[in-house]
């Protein structure tokens, strides 16, 4: 009888764990097994970005290869869980989409999404990036800049607008 009680207890624990795994899988919906493993490590707090890929992407960013830099950052942070990487992604969208006469709205909108992710991931403490090559150092400021770039106003008709500089 004691064995049956033990088996019943084990069965309850096992069933709950397996059911939780199935629910997690359907909630996160990974597209590949590797993505599932990445999300699992992110869930348990063991997630780390690929620093080598991050540095390579940063080098591409400095050389103004923004699209390649974004792809490399996406590989460095496949789960999209690193606030710093999302900030740089947003900055790459900003720099590529910025124009003297008009801005690329599609790129700016993607930049806003990336800035939102960076803000969300740094909810405990405001994200500040200490990079001398950047003129915007916080995710909130970057998001504001991106949002201004997508807004339509009478200031867009100002001819002196072409003299402004990219940050």
């Amino acid at each position, binding site marked *: 009888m004691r*064995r*049956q*009680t033990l*088996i*019943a*207890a*084990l*069965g*309850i624990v*096992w*069933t*709950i764990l*397996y*059911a939780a795994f*199935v629910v997690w*899988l*359907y909630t996160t*919906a*990974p*597209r*590949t*097994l590797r993505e599932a493993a990445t999300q699992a490590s992110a869930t348990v707090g063991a997630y780390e970005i690929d620093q080598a890929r991050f540095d390579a992407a940063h080098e591409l960013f400095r050389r103004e290869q923004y699209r390649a830099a974004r792809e490399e950052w996406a590989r460095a942070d496949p789960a999209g869980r690193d606030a710093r990487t999302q900030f740089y992604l947003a900055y790459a969208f900003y720099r590529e989409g910025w124009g003297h006469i008009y801005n690329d709205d599609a790129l700016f909108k993607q930049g806003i999404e990336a800035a939102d992710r960076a803000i969300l991931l740094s909810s405990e403490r405001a994200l500040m990036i200490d990079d001398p090559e950047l003129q915007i150092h916080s995710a909130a400021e970057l998001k504001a800049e991106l949002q201004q770039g997508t807004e339509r106003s009478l200031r867009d008709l100002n001819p002196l607008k072409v003299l402004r500089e990219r940050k």
Partner: protein
Amino acid sequence: MSGSDDNSNSATTAQRAINGALVRFLVLPTIFLSVVLLGGVRVDALTHALVFVPPPLVTLVLAVLLLTLCVRARLIDWRSWLAAELPPLANAAHALTLLTLFFASAQAFNAVLPERGWLRWLLASFFFWTLWQNQFSAFDANRLLRSLAALFGTAFAIKHLLIANLYAPGGGWAQRVAGALFEGFTQGTIGAPETFAPATGYVAFFALALYVAGLILLPAAPDADVEEPPRVHEVVEAYRQLTVTERDAVRFVVLTEGQARLDGERLPLTQALPIDAQLDDDERPLT
């Protein structure tokens, strides 16, 4: 001799109880949760990415009807599974097992229903009508299992063999013509075909096979195959105490009465006993 037989029977009964507990508390939930996991998995034909489809509402309704049918066909005796006489832990574990059966049923339907369009609602209606009609039919557990195997098998063939091949990429001209005719016949209401890789059919097949295996392993009552009915045990013990002649008489009565019941007659006991069994009864019983 009878003492060692008792010990052997006790050991067998104890082993049966443990095996039964392992099946009810570990094996069955694992099987059914695996069906829940695999029943909603699709593999995209172009990117080979995994797609997870949770059970839609219609499959939950169908699962309720199916479980009701299982109870009516006595495939599940729910009063034995959730009984006041059982310990709380056993009741909780049984409840979890039945819950996994419910969701596995929903995902089994999810695996064989088309993803969208007119054909999806046609098959869902077909399932609903069949399950609803069967509520009023006489079913036993074996018949129900065979009926379910046919039901799921037919739907599987329609979805993963017929429709999947009509819309599979890279098909020949005959396939394209058949697909165009089918699309025209249904006036394009099949829905934008989500092309899935052939692996989807294999996953669905495996999920359905697991589901049927789980149903076969599922005992009607938790201890149905563990303990012999007490009356049988008493009768067998009493039989062992009889003399040789008495045993012959009992066997004669049982066989004769059995044949008489088949013929629609009922014999009185004195008529059934042979004459020597009625006169001689002074031999010692065998031990």
